[in-house]
């Protein structure tokens, strides 16, 4: 065996793997209930993923996974890290900390900072803050502003931003009102080989209400926005993408109508991808029934039928990926009258637990979970991806799927605790997190 001569840095033994094993018989299917495996790593890269004990190779560092679930690290293409400018909500160090403990290896952060990320110096500052605080990752990939100051009036210097390290472009937080300008932005970004990410929300149809127009808003008398405000903009975007033959990525899709339009567009061959968020798969407008501003988010939490449509869409790939839309806000900003509160949910700490629970109860197939959190976002945005094939970056998580924990100020790593899940008990926590073969989270002692 040629591998025998290779020096192994790390071997994690006895992890529970629910996926198929590559290089171990072609087309071999995943075993139901999973199987115990060993992960072998050299120089930060995967050497092999093999049935436990099947390869007699010793590594410099031997770790016992103790039957914990093995997952590739997740990628989150939609977070708000608030630095520069609003470090009291979150900063790059605390946000990446929440990502590391939440199981994420790659993070794309939005441009609506203060100042806006519309110049190379802001991008470079973000990258520098990330390198200083978490030198071994999680890796930060800033998203550049689509328009200067996110004002929707002039294009941002996208070539300069791309050169500085921006991975994509978006006006998230302040959708571009002018369809003309949005078209030009898509064309300009396409020349640079970058994807435009759109926050789909009709700018004139009850914008930023943060509450679904429906039974609950009607009962409570809360200003609200109908789901068509999102779907109208989804329709605009996929029609533009088809007409321009340019790619588009749709952020935080929340409703059945958007799913139907994306399905329509994909059937026509449009280069469209879409994300949805854990909260749109698990929570409904009823969360706001007690006027709780922690449930105020844009787009708003919808109804059961939308959850069902999104789960189907994730399973069949119509919705390609998951993202958190991590939107931290300080307690004093959220503890106000519902209509005064800012929109957003802090999501990095809870995303893995809430979505793995969907896998555990059979609502989301394991393959779709892995695709939505890893391969789909990494391929779309050109990010490091671990499929456990030899040579892949050794980014993976050992996950204790039975560990119960309460969401509170102690357990959350994000500076901001604005989540409707606050105070609830979740199942499943990251035991250890390896990035490029280095353990960034966890304290697993060497095994036998």
């Amino acid at each position: 065996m040629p591998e025998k001569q290779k020096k192994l840095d790390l071997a994690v033994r006895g992890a529970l793997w629910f996926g198929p094993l590559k290089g171990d018989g072609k087309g071999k299917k995943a075993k139901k209930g999973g199987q115990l495996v060993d992960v072998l790593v050299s120089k930060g890269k995967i050497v092999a993923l093999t049935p436990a004990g099947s390869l007699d190779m010793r590594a410099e560092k031997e770790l016992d996974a103790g039957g914990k679930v093995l997952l590739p690290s997740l990628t989150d293409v939609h977070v708000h890290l608030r630095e520069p400018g609003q470090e009291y909500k979150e900063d790059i160090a605390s946000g990446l900390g929440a990502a590391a403990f939440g199981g994420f290896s790659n993070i794309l952060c939005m441009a609506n900072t203060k100042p806006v990320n519309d110049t190379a110096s802001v991008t470079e500052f973000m990258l520098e803050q990330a390198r200083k605080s978490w030198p071994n990752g999680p890796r930060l990939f800033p998203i550049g502003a689509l328009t200067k100051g996110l004002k929707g009036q002039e294009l941002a210097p996208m070539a300069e931003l791309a050169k500085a390290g921006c991975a994509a472009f978006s006006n998230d937080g302040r959708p571009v009102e002018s369809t003309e300008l949005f078209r030009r932005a898509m064309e300009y970004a396409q020349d640079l080989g970058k994807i435009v990410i759109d926050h789909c929300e009709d700018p004139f149809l009850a914008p930023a209400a943060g509450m679904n127009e429906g039974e609950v808003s009607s009962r409570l008398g809360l200003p609200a926005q109908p789901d068509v405000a999102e779907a109208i903009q989804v329709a605009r975007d996929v029609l533009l993408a088809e007409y321009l033959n340019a790619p588009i990525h749709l952020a935080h899709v929340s409703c059945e109508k958007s799913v139907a339009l994306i399905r329509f567009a994909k059937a026509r061959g449009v280069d469209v991808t879409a994300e949805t968020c854990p909260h749109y798969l698990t929570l409904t407008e009823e969360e706001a029934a007690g006027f709780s501003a922690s449930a105020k988010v844009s787009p708003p939490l919808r109804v059961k039928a939308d959850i069902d449509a999104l789960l189907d869409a994730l399973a069949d790939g119509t919705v390609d990926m998951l993202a958190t839309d991590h939107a931290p806000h300080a307690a004093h900003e959220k503890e106000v009258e519902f209509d005064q509160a800012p929109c957003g949910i802090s999501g990095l700490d809870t995303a893995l637990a809430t979505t793995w629970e969907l896998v555990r109860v059979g609502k989301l197939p394991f393959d779709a979970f892995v695709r939505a959190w890893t391969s789909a976002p990494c391929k779309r945005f050109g990010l490091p991806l671990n499929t456990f094939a030899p040579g892949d970056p050794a980014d993976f998580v050992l996950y204790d799927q039975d560990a119960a924990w309460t969401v509170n100020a102690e357990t959350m790593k994000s500076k901001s605790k604005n989540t409707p899940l606050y105070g609830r008990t979740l199942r499943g926590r990251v035991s250890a997190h390896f990035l490029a073969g280095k353990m960034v989270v966890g304290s697993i002692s060497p095994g036998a």
Partner: protein
Amino acid sequence: MQWKHKDLLDVSQLSADEVRHILATAAYFREINSRPVKKVPTLKGRSVVLFFAEPSTRTKTSFDMAGKRLSADTFALQKSGSSLAKGETLKDTALTLQAMNPDGIVIRHGSSGAAQFLAERLECSVINAGDGRHAHPTQALLDALTLSRRWKGDFAGKTVLILGDIAHSRVARSNVLLLTLLGAKVRLCAPRTLLPPRLDTWPVEVVSDLKQACRDVDSVMCLRLQLERQQAGLLPDLREYARTFGLCETHLLDAAPGCCVLHPGPINRGVEIGSDLADSAESLILEQVENGVAVRMALLFLYLTRKSPDASPVAQSGMPE
């Protein structure tokens, strides 16, 4: 009846028996209000803060008078004269008020849910005097007292038409709940632009034509039309609105005999209600105001003495029955 609620946030908290108890207590205070000396010492030594973060004349005066007639000390706190205008958050206002240790707070606020927000943070009773578009329970209770007197307490088989800007109306939301609880049927009439979404989940019938909507109803409750609805693009102008949805005496020809007209005030004469009709015998608008004081006396009494089981409306008064 031992009163078990700390706060009155909306009528949805109340059972039909509790509502009847409030109305009976209010009827008693109504009698006191007709005496030459209208003051009883029931709430002597208790303090009530009237916290009005939104302009209001009649509701505030009504609560103020109700408190004073029960010998409570009332303190007015308005947005313009309060630290709210200086950017203080509602939470900090709440904590400040709590530190002053009042027995009750009456709150009027422009945001739906503001009364609940306060109630969750305060130990004293919170009485909702209108929060955003959400609820106005004391208005619904005074409307119920007015109709109860008219109908001798019998709401069964009666139909009430609520006419006007339902979408933005806390009065409509609370009245739909309360009238339904008491056994009446509720019908709504408004242009679709002023109706809330998902009315299929409300216990109401919707009739968009005013003439048809008035057929066989026992009461019509007109709502005030806020003039800013026109600027918001919800209606073309007041003239067209008045012609299509303004209630006139002719509309009552199709109503049930003895149909009465209510309005929470202040009225826009010639817009949502014809001027003649507002002054007619069918109009109970001024009786609503009178009943408002009695209902608020009953509520202050029940909520502020809930921990004193032997309290009676005239406890320690020494006044003859």
